[in-house]
C-alpha cells in the first residue's frame, strides 16, 4: 500500500471523526454539557441513513426498510445524489430527535448526572439495536450500504493526459498550498531553531526511512531517532517561539516521511513517489486513469467537515454563542439576565447530535457495513480525547486534535510490521496506553489543549471600513466595535 492510500484513508477518518468531535465540542466545549453518550447519535445517523438509502428487500436483512431514496429519485437527473443527501438529512434529524428525548429529562439534572445518564442511555440504545432484529437486523448489521454516486467511479476525464493534468495538478496544488500555509505560519522562527529543526527532521526522516526497510537497520534507525528527538528538543528549547518550531519540525518530518521514504524504501521508488505526490490521480483506475472512489469519498468527507466547521463557527461567533459560553461558565448568570438557558442547552444538544449523525452517515458509507459493535462507548471517549488534545472550545483545535489522535492511532499501526505477529494485540494496547499518557501530559502541561480556547469575533456587515463609526455616540474610551 502506498503511503498516499494510507493518507487518504487517514484523512477520511479524520474528516468523519472531526465532524463527530465538532458536535461534541459544541455540547461540551462551548455549552458545558458532558455528553458521554455522544456515540449514540453517531450510531443513529449511520443506521437511519443506511436504511433510508439502501434498496428494499435485501436477502439476509430482516430490519426496517430499505427505503431506497436514491433509486426513487433517480428519475430526475442528479436525483440519486439528492436521495442520498435526504438520507443523510434523515440521519441527522433522527439523531437530533433522539437527543431531544434524552435531553428533556436529563438536562435538568446536575452536569455530572447528565454525564452518567447519557452514558447509560447510549449503552441501552446500543443494546436495543443489537437485540431487536426487526429494527436494524440486530447483531448482523447491514452489509448493503448505499454508496452515493458510486456508479460514476472511477471518474475519468477522457484522455490519460487530461486526467493526469487535472487530478495530478490538483494534488500538487493542494500540497503546495499546505506547504505555503505551514511556511507562512513558521516564517519568523529564530534561525538557529529552524536550522536545528531541519537537521533533526533529516535525521528523523532518515531514520524512519531506515526503519521502513526493517531488518538490522532497525537498530540504526532507533538510534538515529533517539538522536533526532534530542536535537529536536534542543531546537524547541532554543527557539523564540517553540510552537512554531515544533510545527515546522512536525510538518517537515511528515514531508520527509511522505516524500523521502518512498525513495529509500519501496521496490519501485518513482512509481510510489508519483502516487504520493499526485495522490488524487490513480493511473490504473479505469482505462485512462482517473479519480477513484476512495479519493472522491475523502473529498466528500472533507467537504462535510468544512461545512460543519463553518456552521459551528457561525453559531459560536454570534450573540447566541455568547450565551452558550455563559451557560457553560455559570448558568445562573445568564438566567439572572433573562436568558432561557434550558432552551440553549437543548438546542446545543440537538445541533451537536445532528453533527454526530452526519458523521455517522459518512462513517457507514466509508466502511460499507454497519453493526452495533462499531459503536461502543470508546468512540465517545476517543472524541473527548481529540477535543482535549486539540483544545476544548476551539473548533480548529478540535479538528487538529482529531488529526493528532488518529495519526497516532493509525500511524503506529505501521509498527506492527516490525514486530512478530503475536505482538499485534499487545501493540494495540500499547497504543492506547501511549494515547492515555499523551492525554495526561497535555492535561498537566497544557490543560487548555494544543490551541487553547479560540478567539471570538462577531463580524457585523460594514464593520471593517469604519471600525469606530458607531463610537461617536458612545462614551469616550468605549470601543464598541472590535
Amino acid at each position, binding site marked *: 500500500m502506498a503511503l498516499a492510500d494510507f493518507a487518504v484513508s487517514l484523512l477520511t477518518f479524520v474528516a468523519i471523526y472531526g465532524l463527530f468531535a465538532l458536535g461534541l465540542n459544541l455540547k461540551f466545549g462551548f455549552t458545558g454539557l458532558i455528553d458521554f453518550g455522544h456515540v449514540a447519535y453517531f450510531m443513529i445517523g449511520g443506521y437511519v441513513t443506511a436504511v433510508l438509502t439502501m434498496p428494499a428487500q435485501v436477502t439476509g436483512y430482516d430490519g426496517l426498510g430499505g427505503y431506497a431514496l436514491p433509486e426513487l429519485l433517480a428519475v430526475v437527473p442528479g436525483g440519486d445524489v439528492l436521495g442520498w443527501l435526504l438520507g443523510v438529512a434523515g440521519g441527522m434529524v433522527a439523531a437530533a430527535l433522539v437527543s431531544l428525548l434524552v435531553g428533556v429529562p436529563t438536562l435538568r439534572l446536575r452536569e455530572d448526572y447528565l454525564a452518567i445518564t447519557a452514558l447509560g442511555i447510549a449503552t441501552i440504545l446500543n443494546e436495543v439495536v443489537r437485540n431487536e432484529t426487526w429494527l436494524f437486523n440486530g447483531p448482523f448489521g447491514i452489509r448493503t450500504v448505499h454508496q452515493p454516486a458510486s456508479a460514476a467511479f472511477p471518474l475519468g476525464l477522457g484522455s490519460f493526459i487530461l486526467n493526469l493534468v487535472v487530478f495530478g495538478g490538483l494534488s500538487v496544488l493542494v500540497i503546495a498550498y499546505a506547504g505555503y500555509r505551514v511556511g507562512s505560519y513558521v516564517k519568523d522562527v529564530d534561525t538557529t531553531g529552524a536550522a536545528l529543526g531541519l537537521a533533526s527532521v533529516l535525521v528523523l526522516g532518515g531514520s524512519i526511512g531506515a526503519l521502513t526497510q526493517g531488518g538490522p537497520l532497525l537498530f540504526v534507525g532507533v538510534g538515529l531517532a533517539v538522536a533526532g528527538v534530542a536535537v529536536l528538543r534542543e531546537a524547541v528549547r532554543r527557539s523564540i517561539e517553540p510552537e512554531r518550531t515544533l510545527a515546522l519540525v512536525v510538518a517537515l518530518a511528515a514531508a520527509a516521511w511522505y516524500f523521502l521514504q518512498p525513495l529509500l524504501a519501496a521496490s519501485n521508488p518513482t512509481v510510489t513517489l508519483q502516487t504520493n505526490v499526485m495522490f488524487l490521480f490513480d493511473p490504473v483506475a479505469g482505462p485512462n486513469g482517473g479519480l477513484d472512489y476512495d479519493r472522491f469519498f475523502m473529498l466528500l468527507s472533507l467537504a462535510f467537515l468544512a461545512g460543519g466547521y463553518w456552521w459551528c463557527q457561525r453559531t459560536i461567533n454570534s*450573540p447566541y454563542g*455568547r450565551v452558550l459560553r455563559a451557560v457553560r461558565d455559570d448558568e445562573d448568570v445568564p438566567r439572572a439576565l433573562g436568558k432561557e438557558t434550558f432552551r440553549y442547552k437543548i438546542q446545543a444538544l440537538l445541533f451537536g447530535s445532528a453533527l454526530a449523525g452526519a458523521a455517522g452517515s459518512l462513517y457507514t458509507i466509508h466502511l460499507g457495513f454497519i453493526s452495533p459493535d462499531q459503536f461502543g462507548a470508546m468512540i465517545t471517549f476517543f472524541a473527548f480525547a481529540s477535543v482535549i488534545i486539540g483544545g476544548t472550545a476551539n473548533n480548529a483545535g478540535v479538528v487538529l486534535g482529531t488529526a493528532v489522535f488518529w495519526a497516532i492511532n493509525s500511524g503506529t499501526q505501521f509498527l506492527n510490521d516490525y514486530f512478530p505477529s503475536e505482538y499485534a494485540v499487545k501493540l494495540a494496547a500499547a497504543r492506547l496506553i501511549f494515547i492515555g499518557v499523551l492525554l495526561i501530559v497535555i492535561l498537566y502541561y497544557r490543560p487548555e489543549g494544543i490551541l487553547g480556547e479560540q478567539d471570538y469575533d462577531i463580524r457585523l456587515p460594514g464593520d471593517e471600513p469604519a471600525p469606530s463609526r458607531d463610537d461617536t455616540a458612545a*462614551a469616550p474610551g468605549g470601543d464598541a466595535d472590535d
Partner: protein
Amino acid sequence: MTDDPILSVSGLEKTFGGITALDGVDLTVDQGITGLIGPNGAGKTTFFNCITGYLAPDGGTVEFQGDDVTGNRTPSIVREGLVRTFQIPRELENMTVRENLLLAPGGQSGEKLGRAWLRGGQFAEDERRSRREAAEMAAFFELDHLLDEPAGSLSGGQRKLLELARVLLTEPEMVLLDEPLAGVNPTLERKILERIHELESQGQTFLFVEHDIELIMEHCDHVVVMHQGQKLTEGPPSAVRSDQRVIDAYLGEEI
C-alpha cells in the same frame, strides 16, 4: 409614580431543613429607593432568592406590577423587569468584561439560533446597539479600560461594579441590590448612588440591602427591617432608627 405597589409580597415562607429562613414575610415596595436592613442571617438574601425564582418559596405569594409571579422561573421574572444582583458577585471569569456586559441587554435577535445562522434582519443593528450600551455603561462604572480583559482578572470591587452594570443594562423596572457597595471606593460609591437616584427619578425602583446604616439613612425613602425571617418594622429612616426593637436587634447602642 403610581399608587399601586410595584412589589407586594405576603406570607412568604422558606425553610432549609430545620432553619426557618423566612417566616411569613409581608412587604410592599413602592416606587423609589427602599432600604432593607437586618442582622446577618436575617433572611435578606433568601428573600431575594425567593422572589426572583432562584428558590421556590414554601408558602406565600409574590406580586410584581400586579402580576402573580410566585414560583415563576427566573428568566421570565427578569424579562418582566425584576432583577437582582448577587451578594457575592458572579462574573463569567473566562469571558471578557465586554462579553459579560453584552449578555445583559434584552431582546437581542442574534441570541436566537436561527438568527445567528442566517444573520440579516435586526442582527447587526441589535448587536451594535448592545455594544454601544455596554461601552457607555462600562465608561460610567470606570471599567472601560478593562473591556477586553477577562472578568476573572478584575478586583473584588470591580466585580461588584460589573455586576451592577450588567444588571442595569437589562433596563429593569425594579432592581434588588444585595450589598452592591461593599468594597467599592468612596468616590465611585457616590457616583453609583447618584446614578441610582437618577434612575429612580426616571421611575425605576430599588430595594437595597446594606449594612452601612448612615448610607441607608441618607439615600432611602423608606426602610424595612428584617429579623429572624420576619419583618420587624418599617417606616421612614428616622423613625426606624430610633425604634427600640431595631436598636436591640440590629443597631446596638444609638450613636
